[in-house]
């Protein structure tokens, strides 16, 4: 157990280190004089000098990295020369929105996937199972950005409900009902994508579990079918299901980016796309670093969780 933890931790540190180098090096992918590209319209001698100092551009590249990483560790991701704001403040304002959308979407996905998977597994190849099987398979082939376009098209425009106009986002502190309403469409879109995965994983998992001998033993105790399903059959799948959720977090974030952009919700994705469009590379770099490290940490957490919580894995 301790050995496992140490090995995972070393891997984690190694990967975060490599990610930091990669993020740092991104600026050097820019063709020509990076300062000119980064400064864009604000390319004045004064700004240029400031940027040189900020990035330590006159020093050798490995020293530049240490200057940069020291700043990052202090929470200083640099200052955008285009919007004149600190990158960290942009990230800090946007990140909670992403977290909220993802949490909402996962709640929705689980709330729908679990009962439906249970019903399907109770009668495999029954009418409900067949319909859900075909439906989920079709949904599997619809990317989230197509889904959101179709949702906006049919729900908002045809039915005239929901907030879809630009800057319809309402902050949580201002009005929580309005906030939920403005985030409902992105949460539903991401939720549908996750639902398909969870439903299919859980359904086949449950069908396999219900064949197990311990289910027959539970039946032979004379306890109700409902209790067998929830207490005995669902539990072994729960850990695996959480694992699936953890693995999907990267794709989920990326889908969230596009959905935010389409609905003008000022999350990380919106800021990222705006910054790419404006060539505001320092902001892009900051967001990439934060998101990458975040995804790695979440994956690490879920990995640890599934390995420690699962009683089927022997602990030495």
């Amino acid at each position: 157990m301790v050995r496992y933890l140490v090995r995972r931790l070393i891997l984690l540190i190694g990967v975060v280190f490599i990610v930091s180098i990669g993020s740092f090096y991104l600026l050097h992918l820019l063709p020509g004089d990076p300062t000119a590209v980064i400064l864009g319209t604000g390319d004045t001698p004064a700004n240029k000098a400031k940027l040189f100092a900020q990035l330590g551009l006159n020093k050798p590249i490995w020293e530049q990295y240490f200057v940069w990483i020291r700043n990052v560790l202090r929470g200083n991701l640099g200052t955008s020369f285009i919007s004149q704001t600190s990158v960290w403040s942009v990230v800090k304002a946007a990140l909670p929105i992403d977290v909220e959308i993802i949490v909402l979407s996962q709640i929705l996905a689980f709330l729908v996937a679990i009962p439906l998977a249970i019903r399907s597994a109770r009668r495999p190849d029954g009418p409900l199972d067949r319909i859900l099987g075909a439906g989920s398979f079709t949904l599997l082939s619809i990317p989230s950005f197509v889904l959101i376009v179709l949702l906006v098209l049919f729900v908002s425009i045809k039915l005239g409900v929901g907030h879809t106009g630009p800057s319809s986002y309402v902050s949580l502190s201002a009005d929580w009902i309005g906030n939920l309403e403005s985030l409902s469409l992105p949460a539903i879109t991401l939720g549908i994508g996750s639902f398909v995965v969870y439903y299919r994983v859980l359904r086949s998992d449950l069908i396999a579990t219900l064949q197990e001998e311990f289910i027959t033993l539970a039946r032979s105790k004379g306890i109700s079918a409902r209790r067998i399903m929830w207490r005995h059959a669902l539990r072994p799948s729960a850990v695996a299901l959480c694992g699936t959720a953890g693995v999907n977090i990267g794709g989920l974030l990326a889908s969230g980016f596009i959905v935010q952009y389409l609905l003008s919700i000022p999350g990380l994705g919106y800021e990222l796309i705006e910054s790419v469009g404006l060539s505001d590379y320092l902001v892009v770099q900051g967001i990439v670093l934060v998101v990458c490290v975040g995804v790695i940490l979440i994956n690490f957490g879920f990995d640890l969780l599934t390995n420690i919580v699962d009683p089927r894995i022997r602990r030495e």
Partner: protein
Amino acid sequence: MTDHPKLLVVKDLRTTFATPSGPLPAVGGVSFELGTNETLGIVGESGSGKTVLSRTIMGLQPRRNVEVTGSVLLKGFEVVGASEKEKRSIWGLEVAMIFQDPMTSLNPVMRIGKQIDEILRVRQGMDRRAAKARAVELLELVGIPSPAERYGVFPRELSGGMRQRVVIATALAGSPQLLMADEPTTGLDVTIQAQILNLLDSVKEQMKMSVVLVTHDLGVVATRTSRIIVMYAGRIVEIGSTREVFRRHRMPYTRALLDAIPKVSNPSHSRLVAIPGRPPNLLDLPTGCAFAPRCAYATDICRVQRPRLEPAEESGHAFACWNPLPVAEGALT
């Protein structure tokens, strides 16, 4: 109910599975009775239908693609044709089951104590503390050391023998009158097997239960059962008191099973006896005796007409064979 002297009465029980290749008669007309505080052994090769029989008696057969006819009266309760809900009333409290493989018959993600006292809390409405106390008692009864600490462990942390003890404790929790043990020692080390069988014996006495012991190993049932059923191809081919079946068996198949038991008295390095041929294809049973293709004594009639169960000298002893072995006192010594 009390006027019926027998705990279990099985009459012409048939279990037929609908398979893509046609109907498969896993159990093809079995009748027997079982009294209280009695131990019955059901013996046969794998595929002889003994496991399906034990599950059909409990009503635990798969719910789909299966047809059950005949009658199983358990303390006056008709199991055949009862709904799952009706059967739930006897499951656990009147009849309980132990399974072959303790590695798969316990829920891997549930603490063992919870699996034992589940029936107490759900079926008998015991509160959490009382149920836990009883579960610890049961763990002690089945011989698990430091039971209070073991209450909270997961199955993964126990050895195979310990797990089978836990399974037995689970079955005993509802104080059933009948315990169906389906190959309870097959998945275990030889040294553990005897311990588990002795444990079954002792809890049977303590709890005044009847036990049906299903096994492929006649050696297992020799000293622990009062009566034996020998099954072949879904049918009873010999039934009788353990003593009679061992000493004066008439069916060649029973003899073959007995010969297959390695004996300590044999000289070392002597060849192990195996039954020649393969178990029959249940989808395509011969018209005559199902054992005929493998039987050294088979004659023409064996191949065209199925023998019925005929009574032997001693009452309760019966066999199905056209060419029974001569009565030889002490065939197995």
